């Protein structure tokens, strides 16, 4: 796949700044337990934009994508197992 164009990079940057504004604004609203979830979801969206466009994973080949996914996958396993432990302690 072709590399992204310069316009795309600027659009992604604009989206990132809008998401930053959104996460700061939403942190000042009382959403109860949802506050943390919303903040993390927005962070994940920002990270996904950086990974896909700035880090070129959108056009990378399967081998590169798998290598990139490996680290995050292992981290997900670590997080899931750790919270399984702490979440089920009496």
């Amino acid at each position, binding site marked *: 796949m072709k590399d*992204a164009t310069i316009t795309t990079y*600027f659009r992604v940057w604009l989206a990132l700044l809008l998401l930053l504004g959104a996460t700061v604004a939403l942190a000042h609203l009382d959403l109860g337990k949802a506050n943390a979830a919303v903040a993390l979801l927005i962070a994940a969206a920002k990270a996904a934009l*950086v990974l896909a466009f700035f*880090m070129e994973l959108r056009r990378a080949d399967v081998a590169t994508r798998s290598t990139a996914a490996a*680290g995050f996958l292992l981290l997900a396993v670590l997080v899931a197992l750790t919270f399984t432990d702490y979440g089920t302690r009496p």
Partner: protein
Amino acid sequence: MPTTAEGRLHEQYEDHAQQRSAVEQGMWVFLGSEVMLFGAAILAFAIYRSLHQAAFAAASARLHESLGAINTALLLTSSLTMALCAHAARSGMRRRALTLLPVTAAFGIGFLVVKGLEYSLEIRDDLVPGHFPFLGPDTPQQELFFSFYWLLTGLHAVHVTIGIWVMAGLWFALRRRGPSPNAVEATALYWHLVDVIWIFLFPLLYLTGARR
């Protein structure tokens, strides 16, 4: 050796696409270790936050949220200029890449300056584990928050500093027409990951505060 936009093709590769892919995969193996390094520390933070929610929220509220937000904007913008720099290097626009690299480094230095200002304010306000003078039922837990705060932001600042040094070395190499665009690409990948880590550190540390 003809100089093309893609640089020199080493003999073990079939073509430039394969060479670029090898550079990216090698970088991602290293970045995977960085993900685990920061991931484990952030996970430990998340566990303690879930155990001491009120104390961590109260401690987080003592941070300067606006300075954290400014720093996030600085790093996001530095990622834009870094992506544009790598794009320029790939497209054979060496002069543009040579301009965008110092611009990116300048945003990184700006980040460190704001971070340093923030650290000095926090030291002034005694938000330092070890001599945390605040008295209250949850003082030890608040102190624990600041242990994580200094560990995570400090480790991140070290990474930003390394990134700036690498950019400086890359700039001199580029000026001598040394490296292929893949060297720029690898530096860009590192810089973007440091940005991704901050994208998670900012809400976790700054936005969990009880400001509402």
